[in-house]
């Protein structure tokens, strides 16, 4: 499921919610290996989980057999996350969070992604689907890398 180098993790999964736990564990292992602290690690894991949930729910409308490609790259200063799907393209202008003051279920995923990451870009692809790029500037724990 995941060819990986020291500074890169690649994972391909089917759009099955049952796969999310294993993906989170792999991301957690990766961010720990590159020396991130628990808070930053948690934010990266959470934002990726929210992004994958949105792909399954909206791009693939709950179908569990569609491909999702995930990559994380550590360039030394930034963790760059890419999530590629081949599902329905949601117009970028329609991707937004709800008003947090309106307490009701749902609509929090995009807010979480923006809060946890420094850059979040949804890039519709010409050959179908969407590439989501998220970046986070990170601090290192001395001696971990």
């Amino acid at each position, binding site marked *: 499921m995941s060819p990986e180098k020291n500074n890169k993790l690649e994972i391909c999964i089917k759009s099955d*919610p*049952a796969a*999310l*736990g294993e993906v*989170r564990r792999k991301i957690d292992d990766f961010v720990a290996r590159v020396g991130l602290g*628990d*808070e930053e690690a*948690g*934010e990266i*894991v*959470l934002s990726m*989980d*929210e992004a994958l*949930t949105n792909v*399954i*729910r909206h791009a693939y409308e709950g179908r569990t057999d569609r491909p999702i490609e995930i990559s994380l790259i550590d360039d030394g200063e930034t963790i760059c996350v890419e999530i590629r799907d081949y599902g329905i393209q949601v117009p970028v202008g329609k991707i937004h969070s709800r008003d*947090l003051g309106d*307490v*009701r*279920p*749902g609509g*929090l*995923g995009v*807010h*979480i992604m923006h*809060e*946890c990451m420094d850059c979040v870009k949804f890039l519709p692809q010409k050959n179908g689907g969407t590439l989501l790029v998220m970046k986070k500037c990170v601090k290192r724990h001395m001696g971990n890398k």
Partner: protein
Amino acid sequence: MSGVIKQTDWQDKTVLVVVGGDIDMHTSAELQKGFQEILKNKPERIIVNLTAVPYMDSSGVASLVKLLSTSRKSKIDLRLFGLSKRVKAVFDITRLTTVFNICNTQEEAMG
């Protein structure tokens, strides 16, 4: 009993609900179903123990928001305790920390 609801202890009209495992898109529906079963027994107070929940995303939060909404309508006192650092972070990020009654300990929640 629902898979992520590990235990329910009733004391009169108070129910202590022990939730366990990751609560995400895969498991949040189970949690919601479990809460619906509990609500059928008309509790006056629901105390949710999240000590054994290492991870929760917005799907899990949504299940708790639904429970909160029902609780408010039915005048049920809903309290949470045992939030791990990561679970607490989700509540902080979504600004729900002040919306829920989050207690530090089981004693405080039961008090």
